[in-house]
């Protein structure tokens, strides 16, 4: 007998308590909170900062875990240039979750953007300590900051140490990550330390990550040029030109320089003219153009190009030197003298420069000063270690000068030096011809003193011509801009 609604049943004379129907009381669930971090992220990546701010403003107080809200707020503030606020919000986010390395990184980046480099360095060091795994971004920033610190460091020793540390971090970054920037930076540091081969290796690695990257290819070819691997450099540049018809001025300049060194003057000029249209204000470009014209024996054009180069960069030693050389070749000795004086003021250790100055003064009839200049150049050339670029021409010219001015013993001595320096060098026939001539003259003049003035003067002039012809490309074809 069952009465609806009652909780007792009379069954077989016994009253049974009905079991409660509420066996499983549904546990109240948490109200499904609207966690819309994902939407916030989408709006953030779309730069819809207004929407983000409205969303955050509404969610901030009721959100269960506001870490990401503060994080995004910080990033927006940074994007809008409000760095102090950005730091405050990122700090807030970090308080909510001190484990989040990304927040550390963003704080570090913000400090970096603000220019507080030492603080940024501390933050990244802390992040490095806390990071459970190797994070190449942290390494990259550490390297970057240390490198920056090294460049502004006044103490040499400390700077060296910091730079080494920076390099170590970039090496780590390259090992753990695939970032183009880290590779490029590391190569730059290697290049600074003149470890060109390593720099090339790093960039070649980088090329595996991003093939067809023209900037990297050009950088590699410039480095190859530095270690005189012209063919490889040429191949790389040809690759660049293949990838994209247009090439950056730097690459074209290198390309032109290679062509120039192979005596393809017109090809080189073609490349240079392409650069000149896009970016005419490069001193090295006009230097090279000037040398091209010089090679074609167009002195006026050469002089005006080189003067443009000097005008663009008045402290460019190479351009000054080349200009003076062309002045001498075109017999404008007074201008040559001034240019040489400027060059020597910039670098006081170049024997060739003094030699040219001596020859120039000789032409200007300032025999005393000419002697001083030539003597100094000869002394410098003697002082130089044997391995450094030898130039027997210095001695030959001095010997000729001495002979001409009647200092016969000195002439003989310089002649002997010339011989010892020139022993195993391939000398142009011009030199050899002048040398044998001088030799015979010296022998004769031992008997007949000071009889052959005219002849000697003539021979000296050709020697100058030889100097002018020989020197420019090898010493001074400036390849890269930096």
């Amino acid at each position, binding site marked *: 007998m069952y009465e609806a609604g009652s909780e007792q049943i009379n069954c077989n004379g016994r009253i049974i308590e009905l079991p409660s129907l509420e066996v499983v009381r549904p546990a109240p669930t948490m109200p499904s909170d609207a966690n819309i971090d994902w939407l916030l992220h989408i709006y953030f990546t779309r730069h819809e900062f207004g929407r983000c701010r409205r969303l955050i403003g509404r969610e901030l107080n009721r959100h269960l875990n506001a870490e990401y809200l503060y994080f995004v707020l910080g990033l927006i503030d940074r994007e809008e240039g409000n760095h102090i606020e950005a730091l405050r919000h990122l700090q807030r986010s970090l308080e909510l979750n001190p484990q*989040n*390395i990304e927040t550390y990184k963003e704080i570090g980046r913000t400090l970096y953007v603000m220019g507080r480099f030492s603080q940024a360095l501390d933050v990244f060091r802390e992040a490095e300590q806390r990071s459970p795994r190797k994070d190449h971004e942290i390494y990259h920033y550490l390297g970057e900051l240390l490198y920056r610190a090294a460049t502004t460091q006044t103490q040499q020793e400390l700077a060296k140490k910091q730079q080494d540390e920076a390099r170590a971090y970039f090496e780590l970054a390259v090992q753990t990550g695939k970032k183009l920037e880290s590779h490029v930076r590391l190569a730059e540091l290697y290049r600074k330390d003149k470890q060109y081969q390593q720099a090339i290796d790093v960039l070649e690695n980088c090329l595996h*990550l991003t093939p067809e990257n023209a900037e990297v290819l050009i950088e590699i070819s410039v480095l190859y040029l530095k270690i005189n691997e012209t063919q490889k450099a040429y191949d790389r540049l040809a690759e660049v030109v293949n990838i994209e*018809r*247009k090439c950056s001025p730097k690459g074209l300049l290198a390309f032109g320089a290679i062509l120039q060194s192979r005596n393809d003057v017109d090809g080189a000029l073609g490349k240079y003219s392409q650069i000149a*249209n896009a970016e005419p204000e490069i001193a090295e470009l006009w230097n090279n153009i000037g040398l091209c014209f010089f090679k074609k024996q167009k002195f006026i054009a050469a002089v005006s190009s080189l003067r443009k180069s000097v005008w663009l960069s008045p402290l460019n030693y190479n351009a000054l030197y080349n200009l003076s050389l062309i002045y001498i070749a075109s017999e*404008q000795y*007074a201008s040559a003298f001034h240019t040489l004086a400027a060059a020597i003021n910039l670098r006081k250790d170049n024997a060739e420069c003094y030699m040219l100055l001596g020859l120039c003064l000789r032409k*200007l009839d300032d025999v005393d000063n000419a002697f001083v200049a030539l003597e100094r150049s000869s002394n410098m050339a003697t002082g130089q270690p044997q391995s450094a670029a030898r130039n027997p021409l210095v001695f030959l010219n001095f010997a000729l000068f001495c002979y001409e001015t009647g200092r016969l013993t000195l002439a003989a001595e310089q002649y002997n030096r010339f011989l010892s320096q020139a022993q195993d060098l391939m000398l142009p026939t011009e030199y050899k011809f002048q040398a044998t001539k001088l030799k015979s003259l010296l022998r004769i003049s031992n008997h007949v003193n000071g009889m052959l003035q005219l002849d000697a003067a003539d021979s000296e002039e050709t020697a100058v011509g030889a100097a002018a012809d020989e020197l420019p490309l090898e010493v001074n074809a400036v390849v890269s801009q930096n």
Partner: protein
Amino acid sequence: MAGGTPNWLHVEMEDENPRLTTLTSCMTLSDVQGDGYIRLLAADISLEDEAHEPSASLKVFRGLKMKQEQPLPGIPTAIESLYIDETEPKTPVIAVAIAESVLFYRHLKAYFKYTIPALDSDDLELEVWRKLPVVQADTHNALLESLRGIDHAKLSRKSQRLLQLTEAERPAFIRTHRDSAVGRVGTIVIMCCIKRVSSDANPPSHLVLATDTGHIFILEPQGFNLVYQGKTCSHETAVPSLLSVQGTYETDFCIVVATRNGRVYLLRKSNSEGQEIFKLSNPLTGLLLLPIDQTILASTMDNCYQCFSKRGKLLYQVQLESLPVCILPLTMTHLGITLVAVALRGGAVKFFLQRYQVDEFVLEETVDAMLYGRMGMEDHVLTLVTQSGQMIVKILRRVSRFEPRAEALAGRRLGSSDNKLIDGSSILDKPKKSSIFVEQAAREKQQAKATYGSFQVELWRLRHTAARATINAINSSESTISGDLTHAPVKLSAEVCGSGPAFRLYLTVQNLSTFKMASNLTVLLHADRRHYAIQQTLSRLPSVLPGIPLRIDFEVVTVLDPMDKLPPSSLTLDNSLVRVMLMKAGQAKPLIAAAVTMPQSEAPF
């Protein structure tokens, strides 16, 4: 591209436009009614209305007219239309992902709610919740403190809420929630479909779900089982933001996941732990895994459109002129190609075939969401929803062909960084050579010696003039008191101590003025270096106050011949002088130039 005619035909809207705020993931095309007419389904999300809570509704469009609207219980992450079995007639099921659950609709009626499994909680948290309801209220604080020790993001929601409550609200909250499970449930952040097997017409599909805890699930929608469980990354910070999947479930598939901070991971059927492929410095705005060549496309916040191989090698990169907002693959089966549409901030929509841009059009405002596919009776329909909610529909012309332009192929890199196009056939712009320049050069050739000679003469004359002026200046100020009336008058006195060869020269500088300060002063010593060696010849003085004399000293050593320990013979009584000059910064003439007579030096001991 055929001349000037556009590839996309614009569909004119009738009367009022439906307004729609949505995302690409919240739009889908479906034959909801099973009548062969494909309708557009979209979730309209209203966030902007300040008065109301954020809400969303599911809208069904037939053609361009809204036919049905249904409120949703939350803001959906994604909407997908899928077939769950092979039974005929095939009716699609609409899956809507909201927070931690997926709602399934058939014939637009909800019939199932699937909730993703909770994660295991920290033991400590379980322990705390076991104790909380039974212990005294005053011990709650200590228990809550122990909860704070756990990573906040790893707590369950009720613990997170509890920590935010005031002390008064806590007991009631604990009483209500004492029995509910302690478990952390992630929120679904992405949902998309993967076909079970490859077949042509509407094959049954599974759902791929990604949660903000970094888990990737594949849900089989017939029995609602998880058939695949993966993890983006071994550590917690990898929150997925974008996901793209290719392949079929039964044979093989790949899932690429981009996280909020720019890392991209790859998961395979055989490998349920994501491996990092690459990391970008900026967050991504779009991610695609292309079907044919299996390359990964990414658009980033720094206006780049990049293509990577699955091993993380950058294949190509296109610099865009503004921020890419969303990207969408357009599979054109009749042409056998897959275009990628990139909607840029500002309203431009570009179409890329590999690295080449093959088409573009510009709308009035930024496109927020895009959808492409068969809609209504048309096969190739592109629906675009702009930021203000306008819906624009475009239909592909049937004759359209997409081919990279010839010049783009020649130039290879499209949108390459430097836009200074260098023309190869240009003439070198040499510096101008005037006739005067040439004449001067010729004249110099002839008269080089004369030019040089007159230069030398002038140089010597200049030097002579300069030397004379110097001597004059020094002689005229030879006194011990400065004569310049514009500055404070200064007096200098000197004293020499020692018997040689080392002497100490004491100088006293006194300011004779009563109120002016004498600042920026420098003392310079000058002596014949053959006679005297002075270590420090220059000294900058601090400001000299009136009445307080300043005393400074210098060391002066007589140069002695190392052989006979005698001073040089040229040193006589008349010229044993050290000249002391007091100078003021910015003034060429010294204030005081005095000569100090040095005593004769004794031989050293």
